């Protein structure tokens, strides 16, 4: 996925001089995960800006650049450090279009690695997509693999509104996928059916797509159950049409994510299903998510994370209900 993101950045910076990258260590170092590798050599330090260490200023400056007419892509090294920029995202990135009645808008992207599973330090493993999805005016996008990461990043850069783009660290280098050389974009706010099925709908996003898809395979092989699997891709705007259409067909749903369960994106999916597909439901909707606790330091990290087994159990219970 790192290469796919890097490819998107190279291609978009090549074709649009207004696209800039800024953040700490994004230049000479190529980013702590190497997502911005090779950019400074090709596009120079005016466009690939190694900034002083201040996440609030990285985002705040990007807002000014975006209002000016540029398309900044900023990075905070871990989503756990993006809270310094909370004020700028909530009070300005999200609101400038609204406040100025459309005179200014903020076509910026905040790229930031999120999620657990790589034995990292404290603050390096959280999934707090709800913060940004809860703020009107922001878009919140989470790819689940190399191909959609590249396509969604291109769309996010071109989007006229501010996009928070979460990259799951655990799948940065976990698996490979063919990414076509020719340009490929995907619409923001549109979920994707990754696997079709008539018996049950599994809904997930980001790094949790892998255990979810794996559970679907096992259900097919061992239980003869065909699960439909939906990858949300955008947490906001949330594509409830695709989700509701699927659940109206299957009557059963399990939502899988690795955020604390309460008030999470999974909760919102359930709420919308209750509003849009209640009369089609044949069983209570289940959430498989992380508990409402801090991500433990890595000794207990795997115990904390939802996995294939937990998805399977919830799916089977839903089928039996």
């Amino acid at each position, binding site marked *: 996925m790192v290469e796919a993101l890097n490819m998107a950045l190279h291609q978009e910076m090549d074709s649009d001089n207004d696209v*800039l990258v800024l953040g700490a260590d994004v230049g000479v170092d190529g980013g702590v995960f190497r997502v911005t590798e090779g950019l400074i050599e090709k596009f120079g330090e*005016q466009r690939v*800006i190694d*900034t*002083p260490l*201040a996440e*609030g*200023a990285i985002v*705040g*400056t*990007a*807002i*000014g*650049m*975006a*209002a*000016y*007419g*540029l398309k*900044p892509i900023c990075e905070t090294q871990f989503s756990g450090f993006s809270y310094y920029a909370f*004020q*700028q995202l909530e*009070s*300005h990135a999200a609101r*400038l*279009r*609204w*406040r*100025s*009645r*459309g*005179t*200014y*808008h903020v076509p910026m992207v905040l790229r930031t690695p999120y999620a657990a599973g790589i034995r990292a330090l404290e603050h390096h493993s959280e999934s707090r997509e709800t913060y940004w999805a809860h703020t*009107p*005016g922001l*878009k919140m996008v989470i790819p689940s693999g190399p191909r959609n990461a590249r396509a969604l990043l291109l769309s996010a850069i071109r*989007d*006229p*509104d501010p996009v928070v783009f979460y990259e799951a660290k655990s799948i940065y280098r976990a698996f490979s996928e063919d990414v076509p050389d020719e340009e490929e974009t995907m619409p923001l*706010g549109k979920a994707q059916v990754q696997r079709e099925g008539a018996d049950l709908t599994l809904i997930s996003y980001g790094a949790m797509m892998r255990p979810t898809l794996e559970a679907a395979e096992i259900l097919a092989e061992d239980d003869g159950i065909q699960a439909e699997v939906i990858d949300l891709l955008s947490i906001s*705007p*949330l594509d*409830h*049409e695709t989700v509701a259409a699927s659940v109206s067909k299957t009557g059963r749903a399990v939502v899988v994510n690795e955020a604390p369960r309460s008030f999470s994106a999974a909760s919102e999916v359930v709420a919308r299903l209750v509003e849009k597909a209640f009369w089609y439901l044949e069983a209570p909707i289940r959430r498989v998510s992380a508990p409402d606790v801090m991500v433990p330091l890595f000794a207990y990290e795997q115990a904390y994370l939802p996995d294939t087994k937990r998805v399977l159990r919830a799916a089977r219970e839903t089928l039996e209900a």
Partner: protein
Amino acid sequence: MPVATHLHNLQGEDMARKTIDLPYQIEYLSIFDEEGNLDEDLEPDISDDLLLDMHRCMLLSRRFDERMLNMQRQGRIGTFALVQGQEASQVGSVAVLQAEDWMVPSYRETAAIAWRGRQQPVETMVKLLLYNAGFYQGSASEREEHNFPTSVPVSSQILHAVGLAYGSKYREAGEVVMVYFGDGATSEGDFHEAMNFGSVFQTPTIFVCQNNQWAISIPREEQTESKTLAQKALGYGMPGIQVDGNDLLAVYAATQEAIARARKGDGPTMIECVTYRLSLHTTADDPTRYREDEEVERWAEREPLTRIQNYLKQKELLDDKAIEKLEDEIKAQIKDAVEEFENRSEELKDQALTMFEHIYAEIPAYLQEQRDELAIELEGASSE
């Protein structure tokens, strides 16, 4: 920077406790004081027309502020921050900008906004009234005006000025960006981060700090132990200057220098305008709880409007009769603005569904649903 060299040396042959020479000092600039004394050597070369225009704008801001306070007390507009006493700090700085330059205000910039909108003074006041009456329509502007909308969270707007200025530099547009904030803002993190980024990237940003002595109830001396606010610039390797913020000439002269430096590509400057908030923080504030009348009276003697009128009288550009005529003209303009504001707000009051506009470039489906839902509610409410 000499600092780095010295530190490097300290690690080498000459370990010792030494003084690192920081060749920095802060200038204080005052040109026409409250006693009417003019320093002719420092007197900036400003055309008579420009001087009179600046005076007119200051007077309009003062009278408009008074009128708005009155209207707020009558319940015709909501809470707003008063500008009285700070007109020279704002007009003296903003007037140096060219039309294509950018102005990034905080929430007390009535005079700076009035200057930027001086070609259409009535419309400018109508928009301020609408904004203060709770209509976001008053916050709209034309993009080519390069005026940012009012920003409320203290100091957060300063970073945007650095980003805008980076854009100007990147495109080689030659535009400079002026940002306003107060003494309280210098305690916020965004101020320090913006100063650092602006200096590191050498952006054409003019940081105008209006030190009006009070951040609501916290006096300047409790805000920071620094002797001046301007010296904070030095920590970022940026020139800083303190000026008599009630002296239009001093503010103008300092800003001219700062802007010349920015246009040459020599980076940002911080200007501390020492001034005083003569009135309330906002209409919700009661300053008698925290400051003495004597202090206010002392500062009233140094206030900027009388000061510039004295200067213009000395120069024989203005007399009492001319001031009276100007007062009448301004009164008429304010009256027109209030009338137009009443008409416009009457038209706007039933347009609550505009709250769904400008959230995103295109309204997403779920939001359209919420809009339709509210439309039915509002329809029902109005027919009940």
